[in-house]
């Protein structure tokens, strides 16, 4: 089995590398879910405020990064202001980095067009607390300036001043946003999550507790197409296609081998009896 495992690992590395190098560029169709999220952000009036929470680890940046980048770009292009924060410590630096890079490219100004609040531990308390007072939870921004010292910081007092919350997550954090910010304060929530998490949030979409969901590299690729700006999401889809294809082949191969072994065992049992 150890030998087989090594072959499997090598085949996976080869498949992904080949796809990344040669980039077959297969077309990506846009799902209604991504189109809906795009529509929700597109319908926000310029000057309204979106809260983007970087609820992920550094490890999932390759998957979450392109998604976050596309959503941030969409908000900035629409003239929608962004309040960034992180409920996972590792999302803190990643979120600040992403926002500041996109802001500098699109000429958006810190303090008036976007602010970054930084990280607070104990996400339940933080989400609930912001429903009462954002300044009560984040008295100062990531740079240490008092929240009231920036124009945008003055405008956002609690969830009533936030048009939409986007949780960029690689885990169950959107559930907490739904359970505490939506259920208690009726805030609109969008989950931008890793592909593996997507089925967890579909029940919330159907019960209308979640405004929308966009998931994984595929979601990023779809969003980039809607923005008319292909990027890392589109590039990643080729590698994902190769990996999924290989896993499908391995499932078939594993079953074929098991079937062969079973048949051999039966033949031997028949011969011995």
């Amino acid at each position: 089995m150890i030998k087989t495992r090594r072959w499997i690992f090598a085949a996976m590395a080869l498949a992904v590398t080949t796809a990344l190098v040669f980039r077959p560029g297969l077309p990506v169709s846009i799902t209604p879910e991504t189109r809906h999220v795009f529509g929700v952000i597109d319908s926000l009036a310029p000057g309204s405020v979106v809260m983007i929470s970087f609820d992920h680890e550094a490890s999932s940046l390759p998957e979450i990064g392109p998604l976050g980048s596309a959503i941030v770009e969409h908000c900035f292009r629409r003239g929608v202001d962004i309040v960034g924060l992180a409920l996972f410590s590792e999302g803190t630096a990643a979120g600040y980095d992403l926002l500041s890079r996109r802001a500098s490219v699109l000429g958006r100004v810190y303090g008036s067009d976007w602010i970054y609040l930084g990280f607070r531990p104990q996400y339940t308390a933080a989400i609930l607390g912001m429903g009462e007072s954002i300044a009560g939870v984040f008295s100062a921004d990531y740079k240490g300036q008092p929240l009231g010292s920036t124009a945008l910081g003055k405008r956002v007092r609690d969830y009533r001043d936030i048009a939409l919350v986007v949780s960029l997550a690689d885990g169950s954090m959107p559930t907490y946003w739904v359970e505490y910010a939506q259920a208690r304060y009726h805030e609109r929530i969008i989950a931008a999550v890793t592909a593996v998490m997507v089925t967890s949030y579909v029940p919330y979409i159907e019960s209308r507790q979640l405004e929308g969901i966009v998931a994984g590299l595929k979601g990023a690729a779809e969003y980039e197409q809607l923005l008319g700006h292909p990027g890392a999401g589109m590039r990643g889809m080729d590698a994902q296609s190769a990996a999924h294809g290989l896993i499908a082949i391995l499932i078939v191969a594993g079953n074929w081998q098991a079937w062969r072994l079973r048949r051999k065992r039966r033949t031997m049992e028949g011969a011995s009896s």
Partner: protein
Amino acid sequence: MIRDGRRARQTARRYPMLSRLSASVIPVAVMAGCGLMPALAQSAESALAKETGWFQAARLPELLGIALSALAIWAAIRLDRRGRIPKLRSLPGLDAISDALGRATEQGAPVVYVTGWGGDMGRPTTMASMTILSDVARRAAEYNCRLLFPSHDPVVASVAQETVAQAAVAAGRPDWYRADDVTFVSQSQLGYAAAVDGLMVREHPGAVFLLGTFEGEALILAETAHQTGAVTIAGTDSTIQLSFFLVACDYTLIGEELFAASGMVSRDHTAIASVQAQDWLKYVVIVFLLVGAGLLATMHFDLSWWIAR
């Protein structure tokens, strides 16, 4: 920070009870209180959002849900006292714990117990896992089998230390407990996964218990445990990770089986009675679902207005 740490340590030594309260009781209590809200709020937020007087009328469905749940648990405990609660069916994953510990002892290998990266001490799944840890630790102490518990959360680590120490006393072997084997590792998900993987590769455990709330680290841990040749017993309430555990582990407790298992190992009658109460509540939910689906299908009467505004 060092000064703060020293102060925290001194306070913990002087006031052990205060330290314990601050370490686990208050967060657990608050989360338990909050835990009632989301579990019910997931399914109940009235469209009739009126706030009248001192009571939030819009939240009446949640209140009724809590009252019904409390009533069911109370009734089940009463029935249990009269000996009228049926026995729970055995769970293969639970039955395998003894064999796994025996195997590890024969090999002279330790066992590793992981509660997952996704849960804190306020999460009922972590509480259920702690009850199972108590049983595993007691048996491990009896067999003199080393138990390693790496944790992602300092509060969980402190509760686990107390749990394992108590289990060692209950087994009549207080000297078996080693505080360094039950420790906080890292809050970072993949940092934690890498640390536990490293531990498993270095220590070659005979059995690995993955019981609690898991996220992306689930398959990484389960596959590494399999590679080291350990028996893997898993159980989680994370529906996504369940599929990974079912494929990669030897035994898996599915969702609420973890709660049932905790009741069974604790031999606590109230815990078993609450499993029965959950079954009754499930029947109530099924009736609601059937009535709702029937009304929608036949009369186009949509009852979901009370879930979302």
